[in-house]
């Protein structure tokens, strides 16, 4: 619940808690009007609008390049792509409010990447193309200073890694990939306060964080797909185990940040409940991933993450039970059993916690 507190009240309280020095308060008072003049980054839905525009433009630019017959062979695709990528890195000016040119360079840069990766695949093999994709994405996260681009680079790298694992037939490697991406998301969001005070991380942690979250949820859609001939069958318990462990670590971190006593009945209940949820949804790591994102979102007061987690939680829950290859009776017992466990956990938590919780 938002509170209407002035900055003066905040600084006074920080001073009283010895979290600010009197000199710093004086400095803030002097410099604040100029400090806050920096333009805030656009809200997520404006970024979505820009993303839609960029990708639409990429398709049209590719159509233009192919229709001019500039691209007729793999080397020509790679050369044109490299020229576009390099020139847009040079021309892009992150601090200027040149919306049109920044958007144009973004679309051209993405077009260049598609040409480089596509050309490599066309002339070589998928392994080389995916390695190039990962290298490009990693390099451009640091070099191309654009939040939407960084977000898309994370998705590109994750997708390329997945295709690589599939091509090399290291199917179980997906568990390590999923755990790594989830851990990346947790690091970005839980350490937000530290990242903001770090010059490099302050610029990249948000697009990275959102990228990791989206990559995690999208990758885990595979776990709810029905058996399809061309998709390898994977035992998803490995991912569930990793994500359950990560959720426990996140819970520990949150409890620690609220300075709560670790050795308490409440915490044992929370950790046991988490293990129980991991067991209940052992073949549905998407549920654990959605719960991780929900915890991160709530801890950071981030409505975008909370919204994403609710959407994916619904998708994973519905799809899981729909495709479960057991009788309807077993499904109903599983659902009711899971529901009773969660309601029972709620009942126990209310009894254990010191103060009653209101329903409003």
């Amino acid at each position, binding site marked *: 619940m938002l509170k209407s507190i002035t900055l003066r009240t905040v600084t006074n309280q920080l001073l009283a808690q010895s979290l600010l020095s009197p000199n710093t308060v004086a400095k803030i008072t002097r410099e604040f009007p100029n400090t806050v003049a920096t333009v805030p980054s656009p809200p997520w839905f404006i970024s979505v*609008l820009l993303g839609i525009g960029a990708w639409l433009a990429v398709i049209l630019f590719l159509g233009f390049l192919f229709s001019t017959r500039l691209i007729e062979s793999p080397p020509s695709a790679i050369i044109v792509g490299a020229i576009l990528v390099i020139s847009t890195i040079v021309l892009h000016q992150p601090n200027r409010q040149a919306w*049109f040119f920044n958007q144009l360079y973004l679309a051209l840069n993405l077009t260049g990447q598609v040409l480089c990766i596509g050309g490599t695949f066309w002339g070589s093999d998928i392994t080389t193309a995916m390695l190039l994709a990962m290298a490009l994405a990693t390099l451009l996260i640091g070099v191309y200073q654009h939040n939407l681009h960084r977000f898309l680079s994370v998705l590109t790298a994750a997708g390329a890694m997945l295709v690589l694992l599939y091509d090399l037939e290291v199917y179980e490697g997906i568990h390590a990939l999923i755990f790594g991406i989830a851990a990346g998301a947790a690091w970005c969001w839980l350490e937000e306060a530290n990242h903001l005070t770090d010059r490099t991380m302050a610029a990249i942690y948000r697009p990275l964080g959102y990228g990791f979250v989206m990559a995690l949820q999208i990758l885990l859609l595979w776990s709810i797909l029905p058996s399809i001939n061309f998709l390898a069958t994977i035992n998803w318990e490995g991912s569930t185990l990793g994500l359950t462990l990560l959720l426990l670590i996140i819970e520990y971190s949150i409890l620690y940040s609220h300075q709560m006593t670790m050795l308490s009945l409440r915490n044992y209940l929370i950790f046991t409940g988490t293990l129980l949820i991991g067991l209940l949804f052992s073949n549905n790591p998407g549920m654990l991933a959605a719960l991780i994102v929900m915890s991160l979102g709530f801890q950071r007061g981030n409505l975008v993450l909370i919204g994403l987690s609710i959407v994916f939680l619904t998708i994973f*829950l519905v799809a899981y039970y729909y495709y479960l290859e057991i009788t309807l009776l077993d499904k109903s017992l599983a659902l009711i059993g899971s529901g*009773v466990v969660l309601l029972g956990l709620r009942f126990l938590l209310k009894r254990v916690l010191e103060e009653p919780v209101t329903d409003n």
Partner: protein
Amino acid sequence: MSTDSLDIIATRHHLYTLAQTNHLSPQALEYALRMIGCIPNRHAWRRFLDQALLWLGTTLCVAGIIFFFAYNWANLNRFGKFATLEIGLFALILFAILRDLENLSGKATLLAASLVLGVLLAVYGQVYQTGADVFTLFLTWAILILPWVFFSHFAPLWLLLLILANLSLTLYWEQVFDPTHNLTDSLFLLMFVLNGLALMAWEMAFKRGLRWLQGQWLGRIIFMVTLTVLVLPTLQAIIMFDSDYTYNHSSLLGWAVALYLETTAVALWYYSSQRRDLFLLTVCLTGILITVTTLLGKSLPWYDVGSWLLMGLVVIAQASYMAYLLMRIANTWGSKSC
């Protein structure tokens, strides 16, 4: 008037900026964010856990009950089916009354009861094969839950009612009025009227400050549906402009296009000056981007190389100008929330 430059309401953006300029340490930032309520304290976490477990647990139980009936379907006689459902419904309603509709658990139970009522009606329709069209199921369902919707003061129940109303209309149109699908454009216009009225009702209620409607998600969903049912026939009119279909349905499509333009214009004015909502302004502009791009794509010759480049540049120009406009509006309003 205060001359203190810090005598303004603290927001997340202010605190983040102070942290980025090294005026606040990470610990100070966390403390300040907790002070202004941007990140949760222990109590907020307790409430969240409580509500999350309630919602998830209730949803799973209700889904399990539904699956149970599906399994035992063939084995139960009709009285067994009705008895089980009615007992379940009665138990849910009783629980909702005992928990009091002012509490979230009471409201959630009433929502569950509304869903079970739908199942009961479906069973009734299946047992007594009256030959009635499917739309009567959804219409009856909507009518029966009306009192609960009014008295519960619960936004998700209103959404359920609206979904049922839309389903009833769509199914009635397709099964009774226009089974040959020749008048789909009229359906879109009727859906616009239905959802448009719902939107107006929501906006009026929101303006009156009804406590239980203060989350904007319901209004946003209704607006997006209202706009979508106008965008679709508009795109159809553009894409099939020189076809027989458009010739035969020109008046209806003309109405759809005119309504789309008017609705967008009114929405842009209303959500920028009367009730500030940057999200809905973005939705309006996204609709314009899609429509203008489609119009341009239809007008330009695709065999011409320059058409592709021009289209790409126009798309970028639109998107960037819209983003610039929205950010300017946002900056004018100021950052008032987390």
